[in-house]
């Protein structure tokens, strides 16, 4: 099996291009996805290749075009909706939460909304408090939608196809710092990967580090450092934020008896809180110490670089937390 180096951005672009080529029902809609090429250049060249009907630049009407995407999905299309950042998605929250997530249940199973909504999330580029938040947790709270967070080029390349084949609304969170990251992508005939399981990215026996999305690479780097101290870390990538794959989490903590959850969301009411609660519910008697969390500080993400860094989880925070848990 050969592998090639690819950026996360190109993995996303390849995945979308493949989907557009494979299925005439697929189209891309969002602010500046066409002539501009996408705010993160994920759809560069698409307008020329696929035309205006399928690469639709929208007005700045998040609720309108997300709702239109939901309607188009109901009408037999397979839309990919791009929202520039999770902060802007709040303007479309009504359509996602009140319509996309409820339609199936509210109609007694008559309808389903096969829409894919992609959005950038997270801090790290000094974009301050209206472009940097991690609000995945809010969406992961809502039944009726699936929420995924590809953290690797393999998942960025492979999760979209599975999401488009899913009859339910799927929200894809792409951490904005990942687009320029490069990773090894194994050559395959079919890149599709599951969107319902967590994955162990590194095995270890002393402590479980549970994370997702933009925090995965930081967590792996921390695990590397901790290994030098003789602390064997098992790194679990959640991948799917709703529904959560409890089995993998619990299996890991049953082995290591200790756990830290790394989550760029704010600590209060976070995904980290949910993951911690599930471990406490399902593996309490396997725990050999309190579960720890490394989350963002309870502050709107600030602009200045040193403040932004201090507000969000960093490698050294994860290392320090692990050392503390191991010392107990």
């Amino acid at each position, binding site marked *: 099996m050969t592998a090639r180096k690819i950026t996360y951005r190109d993995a996303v672009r390849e995945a979308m291009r493949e989907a557009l080529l494979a299925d005439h029902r697929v189209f891309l809609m969002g602010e500046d996805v066409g002539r501009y090429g996408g705010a993160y250049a994920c759809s560069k060249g698409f307008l020329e290749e696929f035309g205006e009907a399928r690469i639709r630049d929208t007005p700045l009407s998040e609720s309108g075009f997300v709702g239109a995407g939901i309607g188009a999905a109901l009408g037999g299309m397979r839309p990919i909706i791009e929202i520039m950042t999770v902060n802007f998605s709040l303007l479309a929250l009504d359509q996602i939460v009140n319509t996309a997530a409820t339609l199936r249940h509210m109609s007694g199973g008559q309808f389903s909304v096969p829409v894919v909504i992609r959005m950038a999330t997270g801090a790290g580029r000094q974009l301050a408090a209206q472009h940097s938040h991690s609000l995945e947790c809010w969406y992961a709270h809502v039944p009726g939608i699936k929420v995924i967070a590809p953290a690797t080029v393999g998942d960025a390349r492979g999760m979209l196809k599975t999401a488009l084949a899913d009859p339910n609304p799927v929200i894809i969170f792409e951490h904005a710092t990942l687009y320029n990251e490069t990773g090894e992508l194994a050559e395959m005939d079919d890149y599709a990967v599951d969107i319902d399981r967590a994955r162990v990215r590194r095995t270890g026996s002393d402590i479980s580090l549970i994370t997702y999305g933009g925090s995965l690479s930081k967590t792996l780097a921390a695990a590397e450092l901790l290994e030098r101290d003789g602390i064997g870390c098992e790194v679990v990538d959640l991948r799917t934020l709703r529904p959560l794959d409890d089995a993998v989490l619990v*299996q890991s903590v049953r*082995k290591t*008896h200790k756990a830290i959850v790394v989550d760029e969301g704010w600590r209060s009411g976070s995904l980290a809180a949910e993951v911690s609660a599930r471990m*406490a519910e399902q593996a*309490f*008697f*396997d*725990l*050999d110490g309190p579960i720890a969390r490394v989350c963002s500080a309870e502050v709107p993400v600030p602009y200045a670089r040193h403040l932004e860094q201090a507000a969000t989880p960093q490698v050294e925070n994860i290392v320090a937390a692990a050392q503390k848990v191991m010392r*107990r």
Partner: protein
Amino acid sequence: MPSLGADMDAGTLVEWLKSPGDKVRRGDIIAVVETQKGAIEIEVFDDGVLSEIRVKPGDEVPVGQVLALIDGADEDSEPPPAETATKAAGLPSRPMDQEPLRTVSQPTADGPKISPAARRLAQSCGLDPGSITPGKDGVIGLREVEAAAHHADTTQPAGIDQRAMRNAIASAMARSNREIPHYYVTSTLDVTPMMEWLGAYNARQPIERRLLYLVPLLRAAALSLRKFDDLNGAFVDGRYQTTANVNIGVAIAMRKGGLITPAILDTASHDLQSLMSKLSDLVRRTRQGGLKSSELSMGTVTLTNLGEQTADALLPIIYPPQVFIIGCGQIQVRPWVIDDAVVPRQLMDVTVAGDHRVSDGRRGAQFLRNFGDLLARPEEL
């Protein structure tokens, strides 16, 4: 009193717009009712004559109570009787979410903290958390329990807490039944050669050196198990790990009920006499207190022997994290066929249970055959 909203449970009659004897028509407003949201007009859904008013202005009445009677109205369309207000009781209701998680209370408010995993390990080793030295931070974790369990000099305090023992058995056996998919294999073994050899052996020995028949059983089991990696070990964290030594735990019954299964470490390394003295010592210390923690925690397989004048056979339950257990019924003289002749022989039913996650019934059968072969040549034990 009609229901005008799901959040309305009562209303106060403000005024009657019709009097008894008045004709009313469907859609007429006959009364005004004050609610939390303000005054609302009450309409009728039938034609007829207002025959009786039952509620006077100023009265607050619950939803469902009759305000007035209209003659000529279809009975079905009368306001529902008061009990329909509670008709929700007839609706299927959602079961309570989940049982609250059972929590383990600390031994004492001021005592050392113990982690859940450590508490469980201590319990399965028969260790009293109060006897374990906490770490520097004052917490007993897995590390401290393991250290205590492996500390050869750590002995159980004399006297057995009957309830604690029952709890430990309950938790270990419940876990076993819950987690371990057991298979069972039974064979009837002709132990006449062993019993005859033992009788002759014991006749030559002074009384203190005589052996119980449990001893050759233990020796044969230990020698046999050395060949069965997949029956001797521990299943931990979803994975099976075999152990180099065979440490057979012997089920020793307590006179007031319950049992403890201390292990004879490296059972196969002991000859019959040495095993006998180990066993004798183990039984004494089990009964009187004074077992080493290692003897309690390091068993890799268990043998349970019903003994004389008890019952023919038992289906043993594996003692987790072990994956195999041998259960011996009483030895009895029963008819047996040898060379087409029915002859009286001393027979013993042996049932083994194995953990199906690790091995299959075929392995249990192979063990029984091997075990029987060794017992058939007792002089070689």
